[in-house]
């Protein structure tokens, strides 16, 4: 090769390597690993499960409240299709099971082009694309985990998810609509991962719904396969959907009265989320003097006995 061509080639190689080096300056955080959910907030609701009639702090509208009041937990047993229903991507990030995060790197640039999450409950797998691809059109199928894309914002991963199937904001009957979208922010502080989710669901909610939860890196954890098999466990006649007609649910006030809460607070709605609600909420119907049930539930040592 002639000297002049060698010089040109060297120069081009230098410039190319400099450009690739610039790309690596972007603030990419490694979220990969096995993550254990931390239940220091809402522990009883997230693990054993929420109580019937607990809509507190969720900005539900009136029709969503009516639908939640009609819910019977027998539906999970009676309706076979619900037996293996996954928690959708927004609800699953409440940490109802352990989490594994993996990532794919572009072989040339070594930058992340996608993250994959696996949650150890009913094989909930999700792909989060960082390659700039657009979301599919409105007629594309909706899935339990939806379609997620993301971009880096400083040291935060900002994720947007669309195309979700109808699911629930809380698994005591509060539905989430099939046209909702939600955003997430993943931020890592050492071995702690905080995930903030904000759901926009104008069909079911009057305001955006924010929740946040944290995970601890746990290298000794292994998310196992947890496939679900449909099985007939019900004594209900085929086609039966257990439900309560309006005004007939006998458990509506049980949650509020058990814990000494104002009943209006337990009924939910956007007003219950803000500090001013404390100043106008009514006195509770009952005021338990001392805890007698689930007093140390989910404190990492004790289970939640009856």
């Amino acid at each position: 090769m002639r000297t002049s061509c060698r010089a040109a080639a060297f120069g081009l190689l230098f410039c190319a390597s400099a450009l690739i080096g610039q790309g690596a300056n972007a603030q990419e955080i490694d979220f990969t690993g096995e993550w254990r959910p931390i239940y220091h907030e809402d522990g009883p609701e997230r693990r054993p499960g929420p109580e019937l009639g607990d809509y507190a702090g969720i900005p539900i509208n009136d029709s969503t409240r009516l639908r939640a009041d009609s819910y019977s937990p027998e539906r999970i047993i009676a309706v076979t299709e619900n037996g293996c229903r996954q928690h959708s991507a927004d609800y699953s990030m409440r940490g109802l099971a352990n989490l594994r995060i993996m990532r794919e790197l572009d072989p040339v640039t070594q930058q992340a082009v996608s993250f994959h999450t696996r949650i150890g409950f009913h094989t909930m797998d999700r792909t989060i694309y960082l390659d700039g691809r657009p979301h599919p059109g409105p007629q594309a199928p909706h899935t339990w985990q939806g379609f997620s894309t993301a971009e880096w914002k400083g040291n935060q991963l900002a994720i947007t998810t669309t195309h979700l199937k109808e699911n629930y904001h809380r698994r005591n009957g509060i539905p989430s609509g099939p046209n909702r979208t939600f955003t997430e922010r993943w931020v890592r502080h050492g071995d702690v991962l905080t995930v903030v989710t904000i759901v926009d669901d104008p069909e079911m909610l009057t305001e955006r719904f924010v929740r946040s939860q944290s995970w601890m890196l746990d290298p000794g954890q292994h998310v196992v396969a947890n496939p679900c098999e449909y099985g007939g466990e019900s004594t209900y006649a085929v086609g039966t959907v257990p439900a309560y007609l309006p005004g007939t649910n006998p458990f509506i006030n049980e949650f509020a009265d058990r814990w000494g809460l104002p009943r209006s607070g337990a009924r939910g709605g956007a007003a219950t989320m803000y500090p001013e609600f404390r100043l106008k909420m009514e006195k509770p119907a009952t005021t338990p003097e001392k805890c007698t049930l689930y007093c140390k539930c989910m404190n990492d040592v004790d289970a939640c006995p009856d």
Partner: protein
Amino acid sequence: MKFRMVKRTSPLPKVMAVGVAILSLGGIVVTAAEAAAPAQVRSPREAAPFDLTGYWTAVVSEDWRWRMVTPAKGDFASLPLNDEGVKVGNEWDPAKDAAAGAQCKAFGAGGIMRMPTRLHITWQDDLTLKVETDHGQQTRLFRFAAPRPAPAAGGGGGGPPALPPLNPAPVAGAASLQGNTVARWNVNTLEGATNNLLAGYLRRNGAPYSENAIVFEYWTQHTDFGDTWLTITTVVRDPKYLRQEMITSSSFKKLPDASKWTPLPCDKA
């Protein structure tokens, strides 16, 4: 038979080589110039990656029955209290607290960000971020270290070096409900570590943290669906009463003005 090599004389490869060499050398010169130039020293206020100032409201969409009301005595669900912490928590006596003028124990640094409150955040000076709450009428000061020149940029790419964990040194002076908070910016996170605390409560019903507790916080801000949000991850380290660090995350939404600001003393909040 002799052969003689004939040099081609086309100027194009030479022009290309010179051009590429100039571009490459230019990059080297620029990089060297950046490394040699004195880094500008900016105060923490100037260097803030986002604007925290203004009014914020707590959004209580989690732990509702422990935050919006005073839970029953002994209700410690979700809290990683050890046996001593449970014992002390079961001794909670609100009348005794009131008689001792200790009505604000649930509004100390270990628990205040879980309270249904609003925040008013301002810069007291270039090194001190001031955070006030209306409910409980508390004031917290996040003190930054005096700025130093940033290290020169290295070659070869890569982000800023990782910062060591923030650990507050012991502080002389009286302990207080809000303690002493050291703060720093870490990319686009405000990190704080608070010590020199008086014993307080993780919840209104007397779930305790001790005077030895250290409270670590990570404040991040983001805008989604047109709203500006603040998420505060709080880590309470207290081996006296906790079997492990307690980790919670609280959400706040930016308010347009002070119209919702409602100062209330602790026993009314």
